[in-house]
């Protein structure tokens, strides 16, 4: 009888130990699950936050393909925009006000670009670079870029009304558009890299934007862009002007819509 009691006690003890182990493991698993959920939420938030620094498609591509993004030559339409007289504004105004004006401006312009399937890929001081057809194939990239620029014009008018209401100086911008091949990819080193494009097309768009001051207009396009526009757009030829880095003077056009 005593032997049986001993067996019973040992078996009971084993069951208790086993149950304790199971409970402990389950608690541990629960903690791990919590940790995993927390980290998942953090990663998702990080992905959202990262979206402010690089186009969403690039982030998704990087997270889904072991961090690789093969560089490639692409035919894109490049839009360069800059605020005229901004440096002078910086010298005479309170920095916080300047930043607030600039943020509002970027917000309006980015919306106008996004509405026409473009991506603002770079901001440099008061200027920015927008690309059409760089990330997703876009057969209508030229029209989109020009329509985007015309929307920017309308959006700026609205924004200037708001600035005027706040007794702040109105802004005036210059936009240059050019189409051509660029090399697109992730550029930089391990510590600091970004999605970017390089090539002569970018330089030409930048030079064309610079010509808006000289020609006293707000929007200029090149021959390559003009050749792909239909008769919904009214273009006016401007005098050819020689720019830095180019041997032949560049022919540009102003654009309006019917």
């Amino acid at each position, binding site marked *: 009888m005593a032997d049986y009691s001993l067996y019973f006690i040992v078996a009971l003890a084993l069951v208790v130990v086993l149950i304790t182990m199971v409970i402990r493991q389950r608690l541990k698993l629960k903690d791990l699950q919590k940790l995993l959920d927390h980290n998942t939420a953090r990663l998702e938030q990080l992905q959202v936050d990262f979206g402010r620094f690089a186009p969403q498609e690039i982030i998704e591509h990087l997270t889904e393909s072991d961090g690789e993004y093969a560089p490639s030559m692409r035919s894109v339409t490049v839009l360069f925009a800059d605020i005229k007289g901004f440096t002078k504004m910086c010298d005479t105004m309170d920095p916080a006000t300047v930043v607030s004006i600039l943020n509002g401006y970027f917000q309006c312009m980015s919306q106008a670009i996004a509405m026409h399937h473009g991506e603002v890929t770079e901001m440099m001081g008061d200027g920015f670079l927008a690309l059409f057809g760089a990330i997703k194939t876009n057969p209508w990239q030229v029209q989109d870029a020009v329509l985007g620029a015309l929307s920017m014009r309308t959006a700026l008018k609205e924004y200037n009304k708001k600035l005027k209401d706040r007794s702040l100086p109105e802004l005036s911008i210059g936009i240059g558009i050019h189409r051509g091949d660029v090399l697109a990819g992730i550029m930089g080193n391990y510590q600091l890299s970004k999605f970017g494009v390089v090539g002569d097309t970018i330089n030409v768009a930048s030079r064309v934007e610079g010509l808006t001051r000289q020609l006293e207009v707000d929007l200029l396009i090149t021959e390559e862009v003009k050749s*792909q526009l239909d008769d919904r757009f009214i273009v006016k030829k401007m005098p050819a002007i020689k720019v830095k880095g180019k041997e032949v003077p560049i022919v540009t056009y102003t654009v309006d819509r019917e």
Partner: protein
Amino acid sequence: MPGSIYELDWAEPILPAVPDRPWEQRVKKQYGLVPDVMTRVSTCGWLREMLLRGLSVSATEMPKHLADIGTLVCSQENACRYCYGVARAQMKLFGYSEKMINTIEQDMLMAELDQKDRTFIRFCRSLARSSPRPSKKERDKLLKLGFSELQVTEMAFQIARECFVNRVVTFISSPPMHDFEQMSNSLMAKLFRPLIAYRLRSKSYKGKGSFQVPEGPFAPVLQAISGVPAAVIFRDGLEGVSESNVLSPELKLLMFAVVARSLNCQYCSDACYTMARDIGFGSESYTQALQTLTCDKLDSQEQRLLAWTRETIHYQTGPIQQRTKELASGTDHDALLEAIGVASLANSVVRLGVLLE
């Protein structure tokens, strides 16, 4: 991710429900309930018939769990709040745990799935997104992993079908089926799960053997999927589109051509060009229409519908619903409903063009 789709901005319905008792009875007989979207498509014959069979299609070749995963992944990829809720609820009723569903949704946890399942999910995402469309290499990878040609074809069909449903529902902004979603969590549903799952599976459309493919520019696409019985819905859909006279043939053709051009499908682009010549388009006017998204053969309403078509290829839910709502204010109800159907069908057929490469 699951949270983010539930929190997605989802517009008020863009098209109204149009009561049609006999139609609703047919739908109820099929599904046991009348999904909201069915009451909003009731005036377009071919579209409602396509949806009646296409809302839920049973896999006959590939494993059922992969078909279920494909449906969920696709609705997640297309950010369709309605379909996503239904797909999740259905998976729960089929017996998937909440944990398993979350695992499928969160890429970083995909290590728990095997190599075949992971490659399959990548293919689903890639085809649904089509930015760019999956290459032949991706299809070959599935074959190497042991899937048969027919199974890969069925996968592509299931994704194209789900893309079609996602688009129709999103463009109409059909309200999510909260009752069905909550039902999947109820005690009754948990108790009778096997019975409900059996009924849901048995009511899904399966088709009846391989089908005949009529002659026409899209015949090779249909031929490629003809081994999957349920894929007959695409044949019937294309026939329905061509027979309907709500929109002009020129607009319908250009809508297909715009999608083919945007998704860079050479085969579908060539097929559209052949059809364009058949209905009297000159080469120059056709090219110009595609370049400018305007065409003097279309009236102002159809011009707007054509311009909208390009927005239906890669979109974000909020902006596309807003854009469709704006379009609805100046467009005839039947024309908009049919355009929603044609754009959705074009997006699916052109995605299926991947099988021809």
